[in-house]
């Protein structure tokens, strides 16, 4: 069990799975930079958040729902949680997360969604078997079932995240295809900090040729 003090943002899970250095820069170094992608994401979220409660086809829709799990040590806000009527006459929560781009090969979006589901289970005391990811680019919903394997991956990622933040070490940079879409590039300097460029060499060369 984690104390409230020790809770980490759910979004950090996604950062960790996308790039460990990005996660360190945002959550350890506290550097944050907006780029066109984060601003678009922000606008998308704002729209998802501003509409409040509504109800259609017997489904209640809550927006900007605060979540936490003392078991996993997470806190955050779900874009949308739908409450579907259940056979026992109660409701089953169904989280929906809005993403700017398109479905990704990495598990980071499904893990983030599953983490929301685990928070909901802990807070509501009822099982949350499924949810969905809504991708802005494809304008499609992708259903996600929270099966045992995904739950295990998510729990492992949470443990990993807590150990990672506690250690406080920023991993070495590595320049690759992910860097093009990363807003942290200006703070990360992957081409200079990836072990490729040496300050000592730079100084020697610069001073030899005035």
């Amino acid at each position: 069990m984690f104390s409230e003090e020790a809770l980490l943002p759910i979004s950090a899970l996604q950062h960790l799975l996308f790039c460990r250095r990005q996660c360190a820069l945002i959550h350890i170094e506290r550097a944050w930079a907006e780029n066109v992608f984060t601003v678009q994401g922000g606008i998308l979220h704002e729209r998802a958040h501003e509409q409040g409660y509504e109800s259609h086809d017997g489904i209640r829709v809550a927006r900007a729902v605060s979540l936490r799990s003392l078991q996993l040590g997470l806190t955050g806000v779900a874009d949308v949680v739908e409450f579907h009527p259940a056979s026992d006459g109660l409701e089953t929560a169904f989280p929906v997360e809005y993403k700017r781009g398109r479905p990704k090969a990495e598990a980071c979006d499904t893990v983030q969604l599953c983490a929301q589901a685990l928070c909901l289970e802990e807070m509501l005391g009822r099982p949350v078997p499924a949810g969905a990811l809504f991708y802005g680019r494809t304008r499609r919903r992708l259903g996600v079932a929270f099966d045992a394997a995904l739950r295990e991956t998510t729990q492992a990622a949470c443990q990993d995240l807590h150990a990672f933040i506690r250690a406080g070490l920023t991993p070495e940079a590595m320049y690759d295809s992910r860097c093009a879409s990363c807003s942290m590039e200006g703070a990360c300097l992957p081409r200079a900090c990836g072990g490729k460029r040496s300050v000592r060499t730079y100084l020697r060369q610069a001073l030899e040729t005035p």
Partner: protein
Amino acid sequence: MKRHLNTLYVTTQGAYLFKDGETLAVKVEETVRLRLPIHTVAGVVCFGQVSVSPFLLGHCAENNVAVSFLTVNGKFLAKVQGPASGNVLLRRQQYRMADDTATCAATARFFLTGKLANARTVLLRALRDHGEKIDASAVRRVVDRLSQHLTGLEARSDLDALRGLEGDAAHAYYGVFDQLIVSCHEAFRFAGRNRRPPLDPVNCLLSFLYTLLAHDVRSALETTGLDPAVGFLHRDRPGRPGLALDMMEEFRPFFADRLALTLINLGRVRPKGFITAETGAVLMDEATRKEVLIAYQERKQDVVEHPFLREKMPLGLLFHMQATLFARYVRGDLDGYPPLLWK
């Protein structure tokens, strides 16, 4: 990539700045003279009697826009900024490095290398541009001296020795600085550096440019999460931004000194724009100050290639880049701090 945004300098006495929707508005004598969308502004610098509404201050803090208050003559008074940015681990590591004598000296050496190399480049440029109008052999002697000191830096590992080399280099550099003034030379004489107060127009101009530079470097360090007060070359002294002064060293020659020379040599500032007070202290008149601020802002728009990162960027972004590179050095990502070596 961080964008280079403009800094708004307000020099009109009695101006009132307030928030109007998402814009920053400037009112002078009941007339709104200027409106700027807040997201296009990186900082606001108020000279003298300029007031800012609390709502605008709050809005600036939320939008990461630093607001500074300076006296009419550019002495720093106060700054309003949002919650402290950055990372306590970075700052603790900075303090540990500053406490360790050997690391402190090694770090100071990076700053001094930048300062000496860039001072040398300023002199080499002058030789190239005005070789026939100046005492070229005297300037060349100082170039050689700076080259020797650059090599000497490598061999010195204690701070006092490094500071000694710096002192000698600065003395030699300012000793020929007068040679670099090729226009209105009677009025713009430079017989050495003085600053409290500046006693001639050149020193007045340099002091003002150094103030602007210190402000920008300090903001960049704060934005990166470093503590601008804990320096390496400059020892801690309460109230003194040691690290900001350290990082300024590499910028002084090519950012401030060259700009002062350009302003004088191209006649953009004139002798009558400077006022001598009874005590001998020299001040700028308002029109001259404005001219200098405009030139400084223009200079920040110039695009250069960063010699270490090998990326093109406006000069104004260099402060942030150097602060970021320093933070990466502190966090152990780089094998040293790469000072900006100007060619």
